[in-house]
């Protein structure tokens, strides 16, 4: 059972998109995240740095041939925070549904 916990760091619009993408992946390429979320290189770097500093993502830099390749993945801490955040969002929606149903 996941304990609902609203996470302000994750809930910021662009970070929510980034973390949601990463939650479905073992890891994701920087360009894929950038194009999927529709951010510039610098904006994505900034958001990933914030998530990295919070311990939510791990950033890997490497080379494929001579080309630099950056990828990111959610850490177990980040995944747990994301799941708790989703549970908190669901709780808010469910609570509203319950209040609508009650006379």
């Amino acid at each position, binding site marked *: 059972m996941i304990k609902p916990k609203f996470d302000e760091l994750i809930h910021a619009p662009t970070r929510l998109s980034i973390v949601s993408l990463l*939650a*479905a992946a073992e890891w994701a390429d920087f360009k894929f995240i950038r194009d999927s979320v529709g951010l510039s290189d610098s904006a994505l770097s900034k958001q990933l740095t914030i998530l990295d500093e919070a311990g939510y993502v791990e950033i890997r830099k490497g080379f494929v041939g001579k080309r630099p390749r950056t990828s990111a993945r959610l850490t177990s801490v980040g995944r747990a925070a994301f*799941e708790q955040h989703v549970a908190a969002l*669901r709780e808010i929606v469910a609570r509203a549904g319950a209040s609508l149903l009650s006379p």
Partner: protein
Amino acid sequence: MNERLRPDEAARALTEIEQRQEQVIEVALTPAWFWWVNAGLMVGLSAAVESRRPLVIGIGTAVFVTGVLAATGRVVIGALRRAQLRNRLLPPVGVLAILAFVAAILAASLPTSFALDAAGVRYPATCGVLLGATVMAVGGPLLMRYLRRLMLAGRVGGQR
């Protein structure tokens, strides 16, 4: 902020989460053309082997190997360049579906080939493989649709 977040905003956030996760799932799915290409290559190889002419067998084998490697490479490398799907998103029933798909292709082609061979039909293996290839070309996209549904249901935020 939790206390101030309205239910409609929370619902919108959950929709955003679902859509982003769906983007990753779509990357991992094998496109329909892959099944048709492989089905065609299988039939071509069988026909080449049953021609019993060394040159045709050689060309058929080369085309088959090159084609399978190129198609698989394109699909796998294309997906890995973007994102690697989380393994846990594919439940055991999904793995069983993949195994059943492979078994269905074999079940369609092998018995048909042996039966046609016993009946003295010309090109029995090619006819059998043609049936298996049809199962692959039609069943591949159906399998992907099924796996997509399973993975969408299994994602975080996917069961509201």
